[in-house]
């Protein structure tokens, strides 16, 4: 039984390690604050084109996405897992598993915001972790429920601002080369997520960023590098 205990301890060790990677701080400096908005000198058709460009970043319809996800921390340490995202309307299902397929976390966030965790190995059996992860996934793939305002957003230029009453603000800005940068701010106008979406590719008639770099600033900040493995319409 000693060996069994050691084996289980080993599994717990890995879970704790991964959680530390998730929660470890790798970003420093003052938090970014919501920049002011300058009126866009565009005609209505041009504004609509920008809006459509922004909407195209998000996933529409029912899809199954698989990414490799590398969690990074200081000193170059990191670990790689597979992330599964199943989108069906406003419902988001997410799974985190090892490359070998062992499920670390599985949860569903329905359209009403109800979270159901099907599997979460310790220490992922933490409600805050589950809510934070599902929030990040929703932010990445689903367009905010708000009419975007097209405007000049700080130094990064023209983009779309989504003001989501209950949650905060999302700025989505196209950058040269077909990429986008997204900044998410809370109700106190402090940045909570910074996301780069790069190298859009067509898979199964949909457009998806092949590379996603997500950075959550602050003491419990983290960075994720996501690489698209597959996108399948369901």
């Amino acid at each position, binding site marked *: 039984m*000693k060996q069994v205990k050691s084996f*289980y301890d080993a599994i717990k060790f890995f879970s704790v390690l991964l959680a530390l990677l998730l929660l470890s701080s790798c970003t420093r400096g003052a938090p970014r604050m919501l920049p002011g908005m300058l009126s866009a000198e565009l005609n209505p058709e041009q504004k609509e084109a920008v809006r459509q460009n922004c909407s195209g970043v998000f996933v529409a319809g029912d899809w199954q996405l698989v990414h490799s996800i590398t969690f990074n921390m200081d000193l170059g340490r990191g670990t*790689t897992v597979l992330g599964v995202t199943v989108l069906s309307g406003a419902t988001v299902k997410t799974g985190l598993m090892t490359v070998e397929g062992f499920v670390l976390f599985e949860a569903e966030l329905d359209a009403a915001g109800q979270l159901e965790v099907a599997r979460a190995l310790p220490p992922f059996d933490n409600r805050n972790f589950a809510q934070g992860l599902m929030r990040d996934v929703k932010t990445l793939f689903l367009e905010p429920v708000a009419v975007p305002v097209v405007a000049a957003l700080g130094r990064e230029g023209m983009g779309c601002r989504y003001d989501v009453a209950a949650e905060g603000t999302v700025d989505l800005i196209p950058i040269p080369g077909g990429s986008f940068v997204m900044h998410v701010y809370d109700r106190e106008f402090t940045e909570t997520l910074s996301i780069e979406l790069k190298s859009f590719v067509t898979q199964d008639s949909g457009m998806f960023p092949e590379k996603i770099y997500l950075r959550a600033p602050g003491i419990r900040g983290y960075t994720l590098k996501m690489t698209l493995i597959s996108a399948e319409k369901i």
Partner: protein
Amino acid sequence: MLLRILTVFLSGLLCLTVAQAQDAGARSVLIRSVQADFVQEKHLAILAHPIVSTGRFTFKAPVSLRWEYFTPVHTVLLMDDGRTRKYVSQNGEFVEEHGMGVDSMQIVLQEITGWLDGEINDTPTFIAEPEKDGYIILRPRDQALARIVSRIELKLMGTSGLMESVTLYEGPESFTRMVFAEAVLNEAILPSVFRQP
């Protein structure tokens, strides 16, 4: 990384002989090396389509192992001379992953060598239940482990003494199935296979 712990010790099962499987009293066939390709399917309740991975498994007695996934993410797990390392391909180059729990891998190695040298139902981790048509069911002895792996189903490859498939059940709708092919037994393998990604 957690599944690595499990799948790697499962890899020892690839070397399980028919004699071991069908007759707990039989002696082991001497295993010097095993190589096989595998296709892995991950099934999960939330998945509309399973995630398919491919790779190759290489084992050399007593404790050298190369567990390589080619797709969807190219990773190599190496165990040799008491050392365990894991590499992930990034931009065409292998990068060593740190903090992967070398101590944990020693536990895995104990499982592997235990299966190779002794009887399958002697493992302190699982209870083996031989079934019809070349299947063996392994059930965890420990309830804590049972919450992570409910059972493991092994299918033997005819009378060759090799495994045809390994299915690891995490829950009713969550399982990982590895199907092996092109297995080669007791062929010489260069030491570098277990030392370089």
